């Protein structure tokens, strides 16, 4: 009971202190551009009333979901195959290791060149950003499977595609899920950056547009806070998935 109370009260105390410091810092420095917390709340309500806030959240989430799911459908099978067939990994690994450290942000000019200024550019960037963590996690997951599971399955006469479906995928799933959680975090970071350049809707666009169209820093900070809260929500969803029986056996830490 006490631990539970502490886990609510302590973070709440930090939040209150943070908001207070922010408020008085703006008052004492006499800034007429940077907003107080109250102005940010008012700005958020204004956006909500106009219906812009919900539209932008939906736009950003749509791009993240689409790009992320594309990366899941490409990255997991690709990673499973590379993890299973050593020659395939030898062939592809150097290329992966070169492409992986390139920030998705560096791909923005290329994305605009290929897709122009519409939804496809940020979706492509999200796809790229998610693909590498998902692929590398899937490769590692397959390579870490305990040999006894594979041997037992072979002993029962399971081979080929059935072996992948009945043993390789379920045995690799916990570690793959850890990769998915990481990838979704990166995807959310990238969508905001992509929307600042390549489109004209979404939370990233909101931030850059509020600054350009009249230095509305109350709306800039409102957008930032929404990004933080939604990112937290996405991570919470992934943590719920980690509680499923299919993966919990491999994640009990």
């Amino acid at each position, binding site marked *: 009971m006490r631990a539970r109370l502490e886990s609510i009260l302590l973070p709440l105390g930090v939040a209150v202190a943070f908001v207070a410091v922010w408020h008085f810092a703006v008052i004492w420095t006499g800034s007429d551009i940077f907003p107080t917390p109250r102005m940010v709340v008012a700005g958020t309500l204004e956006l909500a009333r106009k219906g812009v806030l919900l539209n932008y959240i939906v736009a950003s989430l749509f791009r993240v979901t689409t790009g992320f799911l594309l990366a899941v459908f490409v990255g997991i099978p690709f990673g499973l195959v590379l993890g299973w067939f050593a020659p395939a990994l030898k062939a592809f690994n150097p290329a992966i290791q070169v492409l992986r450290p390139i920030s998705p942000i560096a791909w923005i000019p290329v994305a605009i060149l290929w897709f122009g200024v519409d939804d496809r550019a940020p979706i492509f960037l999200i796809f790229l950003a998610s693909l590498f963590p998902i692929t590398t996690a899937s490769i590692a997951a397959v390579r870490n499977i305990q040999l*006894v599971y594979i*041997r*037992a399955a*072979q*002993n029962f006469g399971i081979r080929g595609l059935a072996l992948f479906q009945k043993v390789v995928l*379920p045995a690799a799933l916990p570690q793959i899920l850890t990769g998915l959680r990481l990838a979704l975090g990166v995807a959310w970071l990238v969508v905001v950056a992509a929307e600042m350049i390549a489109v004209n809707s979404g939370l990233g666009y909101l931030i850059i547009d509020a600054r350009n169209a009249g230095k509305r820093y109350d709306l800039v900070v409102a957008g930032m806070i929404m990004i933080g809260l939604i990112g937290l929500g996405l991570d919470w969803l992934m943590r719920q998935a980690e509680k499923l029986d299919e993966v919990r*056996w491999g994640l009990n830490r």
Partner: protein
Amino acid sequence: MLSPVMQPLVKLDRAPQPARTKIAARGVWMTFPGRGSDAQPINVLEDIHLEVRDGEFVCLVGPSGCGKSTLLNIAGGFLQATRGEITVDGQPVTAPDPRRIFIFQENAAFPWLTVEENIGFGVKRATEAGRREVIEHYIEMVGLTGFGTAYPRELSGGMRQRVEIARALAAEPDVLFMDEPFGALDYLTRLRLRAELIQIWQREKRTVLFVTHDVEEAVQLADRVVVMGKRPSRLRAIVPIEVPRPRDLDDPVCRVLREEIFGVMGLDHQGLQASPDSSGSLPPSTDPD
């Protein structure tokens, strides 16, 4: 080289053994490439000859690293012998086969499946009712009634090993290969599972080839104990254990047999090296392990 075969110490009025050979090892050699720059190939098994009769329970014992698991893995089809072959029902073993199920020390019950799903993994029945019947039968046999929907992570080590045994039996194999299946369990659990395994084997009458480094375990379980020496391993002796089951470990005959096996392995019962033995094995300090 033929192994010395010990005379049984007691004659018992037992039904005559079925003479049919189930598993036969004929001149099996296993050589692994050595590691390091001055790599010398390592001979793990040298010229192993062994016959296991249908329905027989045979234990392979020997010091750790002696190649007994290697021999079992060749029999299971997971390794290929460098020379010679192992046959089951006269057919050379080249790959794992559902008619011969291997039980692993590390426990290979699939952690993403429930107890029922694990046991049903290798069941060969056409109808769902038939499958259910087999699963229920073996859940009950290994004493896991009520745990059907539990996951392995929710069970103790001993219960997980029962799941694996039930899964193996439910595939209705003729042969069970068991590689130190109780090695990772605590002493009391080990004693219980041994007793249960013997009961199950007496009911099911499968051929069992069981690897252990525990001489006491071998004497309690086996029809015959095959004793292996240090690497490179040949068979040192084959010791028939003609004591009725269930066997009391303090039974004087069991104690004498245990001492004899320790003697063959070159150890007295306190683990000290006995008088230099005739086969000229290396002293323990130069053991490659």
